[in-house]
């Protein structure tokens, strides 16, 4: 066996050398792009052209890319759908770790942005003059792309929440649109009793929905101050949420169907899932994936935790960010600005996206858009109002992607066994805190 060693050593050495070679390349490219980049530099880069790889799943970016390439014919944008949400983050993190195949621009949801920023995977936009764009965006999304005073991305869309409901089903069983979550619970009971196949909504344990509803209830389970983090799911907001949701679970009033599955869209089109609470980016998905429900659905304000209140929260929403290991950063910034702040925004709005820019949100043409799917309702008015009513002061964890990945290990238990939602949330808190501590945060 001893004789084998010299050769193994040679092999390992050459592996090491190869790794060093890779390292040199990446440090070169980041060195060249540090410092200040003026608008003129960006314009020059756009005129000069080149190739740009963009990872995103947002459907309206396709039209944006077409328009962008018409305007800047020398730029060739390669738009890649590398998966939705977590799937893409996994691929992205692997590419970053490998130092190869990293896209120039990536779509990153607001909840995931701090984790990528902290992991030094993103280019800080300080040198690009991104701070001056602050006034163009609504405050919620803008604060979401800012981490520790540094801007890491440009907001692409936002997800102020609303209640989407099937009016046909509600009318059939004489159910009024619920104004509070208690009324929602009563509506759930009434509907399921009248038709055992129908449910008020579906839920099999969804971290995004849970945190958004706690957010709306005024809960602040996460506070982040640099590397000092607190996680607390026993504050009044979380308790309020657990009280109502526990009853929905215990009385089996939630359809055991996962969101984004085929059954989900079928259920919404067919009337067995009577409502969903989600972000304002939803309409495009209704039209494309549940066409059978067209004309039957309507939009209403999100039910309230306190009668008469007007609180709302964000659900989802994402930004575009420049990867640190990507090449061609001036070009990347040029595309990003076009898509999220420039002419691209109107293109996306025209195709059904819900923007994060104040210009479009205050535009009468935008507010007066009649949605055929919602029976001609001017749904954007409700969304825009919701955007203004988002409860302030919410923040996600700097390791929210991981934390969400263990949601079903912990809170999920409440959906399939005797564990209570409160205990599930407590377990989620403990597991998340444990991970945070291991990663070097001070977690309380």
């Amino acid at each position, binding site marked *: 066996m001893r004789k084998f060693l010299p050769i193994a050593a040679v092999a390992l050495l050459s592996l090491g050398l190869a790794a060093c070679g890779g390292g040199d390349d990446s440090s070169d490219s980041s060195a060249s792009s540090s410092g200040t980049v003026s608008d003129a530099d960006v314009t020059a880069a756009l005129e000069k052209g080149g190739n740009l790889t963009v990872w995103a799943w947002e459907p309206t970016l396709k039209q944006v890319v077409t328009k962008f390439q018409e305007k800047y014919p020398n730029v060739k944008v390669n738009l890649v759908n590398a998966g939705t949400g977590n799937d893409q983050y*996994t691929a992205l993190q692997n590419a970053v*770790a490998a130092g190869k195949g990293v896209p120039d621009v990536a779509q990153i949801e607001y909840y995931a942005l701090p984790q990528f920023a902290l992991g030094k995977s993103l280019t800080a936009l300080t040198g690009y003059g991104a701070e001056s764009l602050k006034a163009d965006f609504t405050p919620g999304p803008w604060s979401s792309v800012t981490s520790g005073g540094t801007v890491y991305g440009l907001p692409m869309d936002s997800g102020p929440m609303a209640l989407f409901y099937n009016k046909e089903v509600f009318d059939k069983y004489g159910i009024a649109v619920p104004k509070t979550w208690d009324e929602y619970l009563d509506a759930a009971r009434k509907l399921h009793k009248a038709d055992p196949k129908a449910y008020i909504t579906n839920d099999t*344990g969804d971290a995004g929905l849970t945190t958004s509803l706690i957010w709306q209830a005024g809960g602040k389970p996460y506070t982040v101050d640099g590397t000092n983090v607190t996680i607390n799911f026993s504050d009044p907001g979380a308790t309020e949420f657990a009280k109502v949701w526990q009853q929905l679970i215990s009385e089996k009033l939630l359809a055991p169907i996962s969101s984004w599955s085929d059954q989900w869209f079928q259920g919404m089109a067919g009337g067995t899932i009577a409502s969903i609470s989600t972000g304002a980016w939803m309409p495009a998905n209704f039209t494309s994936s549940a066409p059978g429900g067209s004309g039957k659905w309507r939009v209403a304000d999100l039910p309230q935790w306190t009668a008469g209140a007007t609180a709302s929260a964000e659900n989802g929403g994402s930004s575009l960010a420049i990867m640190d290991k990507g090449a061609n950063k001036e070009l990347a910034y040029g595309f990003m600005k076009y898509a999220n702040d420039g002419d691209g925004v109107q293109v996306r709005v025209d195709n059904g996206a819900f923007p994060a820019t104040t210009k479009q949100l205050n535009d009468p043409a935008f507010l007066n858009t009649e949605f055929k799917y919602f029976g001609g309702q001017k749904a954007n008015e409700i969304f825009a109002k919701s955007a203004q009513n988002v409860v302030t002061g919410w923040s996600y964890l700097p390791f929210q992607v991981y934390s969400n990945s263990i949601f079903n290990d912990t809170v999920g238990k409440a959906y399939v066994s005797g564990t209570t939602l409160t205990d599930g949330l407590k377990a989620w808190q403990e597991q998340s805190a444990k991970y945070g501590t291991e990663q070097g945060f001070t977690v309380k």
Partner: protein
Amino acid sequence: MAVPQVAAPPGVRVKRRGRSWKGWQFVGPFMLVFAFVFLAPIAYTIYLSLYRNQLVGGNSFVGLDNYTKALQDSQFWSALGRVSLFLVVQVPIMLALALIVALAIDSGRLYGKAFFRVSIFLPYAVPAVVATLMWGFMYGNQFGLVKNINDWLGTALDPLAPNIVLASIGNIVTWEFIGYNMLILYSALATVPTSLYESAEIDGASQMKIITAIKLPAIRGAITIATIFSVIGSFQLFNEPSILRPLAKNAITTFFTPNLYASSLTFAGQQYNYAATVAIIMALVTMVIAYIVQLRGSRNR
């Protein structure tokens, strides 16, 4: 090795070395590939397992900390416990069924022997991913076969409930691998000389006696090998739970099996170092158990 005892200057020693390197020139290419493909990944995994890369604080050498952590990690132990339970329940059932089928086909009394052999082997030819998806569709109590059964019989079966999902996975694995194990055992049976059976029959031995006295002892080695493969397969359980997870994410946790745990640590938690540790420990556990099985299998020969 008759080397002349000459007090040569250092340069002359090249001749002697050149001779001893001749063999290496032949095995060199193989050794290089071997080192790259087998040794380097293991060495790299061990290297990884000695570090810890934190979001805050970066990469640092931590010695054996990851190993002590793994040994105290309740999630790791629950994963190991789950695959061990799987091993002691599913493997005997699967191998017993495979043995019965192999003996039945070998008995020569089965009508349509070739048809049975092929149809029982067929599931093994279906990729595990496809097989699991297929079973997933059947297991679904919202849309699948189980839903239909529930509708007809008024039952409330749910094969993906937390307390039975392991059994449901066992069912898939059994279905997939009976044919494979049957083939190992059957080919061993086929090598037994028929003269032994003839003389047993002349001695008046019953079919049962022939099985216990001739066939089983003759294929002991094959049974041991099939068992070792199954032990390794159980500890490496990954495809089935990982593919069923989207259908039952509350029942199949991110630490359902050691492999699934290592994969979640890597991809969701970016804990490459700890995942490498889990991988090394699992490799050791698997080797020890497989070695014990092999010792037991060859002891009473």
